[in-house]
């Protein structure tokens, strides 16, 4: 999406601000959801859906499309808001999030929401699904790219490392894993709950091309996704340093905001902060 005469990075930042407002509003209205880990990956999702992925919101199931598998399914609000902003479904749907009979489940259901590529929420499963999609694309000689967004706490799941081994074994260079390294999980810092570092050397030893970026800097995100494309014969992981609760001062880096919904007063404060920036 190119807007004439507008700085594309500025446009992405504005879009991310709109998505953050949707995320906070959805969670506050539903009084359910995961604000911390949704806000940390907003910039990554906005960059992908507005500047990287080859997609057509009018044809959400087109086999030729690029795909994003949100392995950290609890960040569903960030995905929904990004998809709605990108035109996959009406923005009005967002108000139904988490309510009975809504298409917008607290964790995403691909059969209910246009643009959601995989049903996720049980952590650890998305990278394997991404590998399957990637192998099918190679088998059918499609040049689709498959992105898998992983949480950092999620990397504690053993299946992730089974999949990491297999991605490398099959030399899938159409697959890019992105780690949303916000360093905080439900009950505390990742490093105290169950340390996952040193992450770059872990992935390197599994045969991956490793890139490290600031996950809130659009130029770095775009440069890394471009660099991943030119790396052949192995999968790429982008380790994106992020801030849990990014954009909301009282949520940032706090594990209690992993799964707590803001009150209406807190929502007002958060929205005002985003408007000020």
């Amino acid at each position, binding site marked *: 999406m190119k807007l004439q005469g507008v700085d594309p990075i500025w446009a992405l930042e504005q879009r991310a601000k709109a998505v953050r407002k949707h995320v906070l509003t959805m969670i506050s209205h539903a009084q359910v959801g995961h604000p911390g880990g949704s806000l940390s990956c907003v910039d990554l999702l906005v960059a992908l859906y507005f500047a990287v992925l080859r997609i057509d919101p009018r044809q959400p199931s087109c*086999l030729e499309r690029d795909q994003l598998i949100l392995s950290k399914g609890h960040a569903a609000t960030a995905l929904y808001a990004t998809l709605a902003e990108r035109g996959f479904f009406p923005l009005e749907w967002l108000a139904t999030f988490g309510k009975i009979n809504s298409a917008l489940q607290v964790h995403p*259901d*691909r*059969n209910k929401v246009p643009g959601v*590529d*995989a*049903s*996720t*929420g*049980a952590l*650890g*499963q*998305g*990278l*394997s*699904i*991404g*590998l*399957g*999609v*990637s*192998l*099918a*694309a190679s*088998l*059918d000689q499609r040049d689709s790219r498959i992105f898998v967004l992983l949480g950092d706490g999620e990397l504690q799941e*053993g*299946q992730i490392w*089974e*999949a990491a*081994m*297999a991605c490398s*074994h*099959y030399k899938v260079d159409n697959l890019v894993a992105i780690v949303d390294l916000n360093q905080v999980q439900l009950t505390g810092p990742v490093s105290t709950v169950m340390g996952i570092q040193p992450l770059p050397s872990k992935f390197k030893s599994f045969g991956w091309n490793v890139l490290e970026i600031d996950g809130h800097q659009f130029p770095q995100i775009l440069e890394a996704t471009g660099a991943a494309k030119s790396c052949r014969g192995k999968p790429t992981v982008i380790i994106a340093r992020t801030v849990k609760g990014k954009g909301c001062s009282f949520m940032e880096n706090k594990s209690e905001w992993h799964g707590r919904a803001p009150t209406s007063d807190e929502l007002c404060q958060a929205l005002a902060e985003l408007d000020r920036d």
Partner: protein
Amino acid sequence: MTAIRDAFGKALVELGGKNDQVVVLDADLGSSTRADLFAKTFPERFFQMGIAEQNMMGVAAGLALSGKIPFVTSFATFVTKRACDQVAISIAYPNLNVKIIGAYTGLFSGHTGATHQAIEDISIMRGIPNIVIIDPADAEEMRQAVPVIADYRGPVYLRETRDEWPDIFGADYQFAIGKSTTIIEGQDASIIACGVMTSESIRAAAMLAKQGIKAQVINMSTIKPIDRQAIVTAAQQTGIIITAENHSIFGGLGSAVAEVLVEELPCWMRRVGIPDVFGESGSNQELMEKYGLSAKHIAEVVMHTIKKGR
């Protein structure tokens, strides 16, 4: 006598020749499951996933999302237990077109013992929505089931027995998902069986016939969705139902039949199956005798139940 796993392996190769969307995944057991026949014939559509069943299920889900028809093969105990959440959430919840093949079913695991026996696989899979469950009775039914489940759109769990068992069906038989078959008619009792226990039940019916008891034998190869009408009709006709399965008496065929009867037409019923214990190493014959799966045991249960019902 034909080894059911051999029938599976050949049927899979035949299917692969007709449908290029079929892909096969293996967790280093292809020589046991006979998936290796497919690997030799269609190497480009065979994915060796190593000893990592959870990842294998997710990869199958991804392949299915892209229009492939993945057959995921390993031992029944591993595909249902080791990778249970992946089966439920990556495959069954989004209702993906993945065929899960569980080999070495029940007690019959080639002497390997409790770690490799699957005595609760049906129970686990029955609890997960969207999954069709099939336990073929012989090589012919297995041969026919493979293309049928490929044509069916949605997740299927197919039990694959390891060894040679008597041939029951001829080429004129027509397997259909959800349809049971009455193999022997009889008005004194109904034996409803699945998998290789169907052939034991046929032998049991012959033993009973010698004592003047006419038992009908129904092959209930689809355990989910179960053929409710056939169960109700059998209860109406005989008033005595015995189930026989190479599986725990909890949560498998016996439970499924009991659920139908208790809602539709309660009658005298007994379940033949593995009691609530883990198995052990031993030959199929020894295991059948020790754990009460043999034709002789089925016949005894039928007689006992008829006496009680009178």
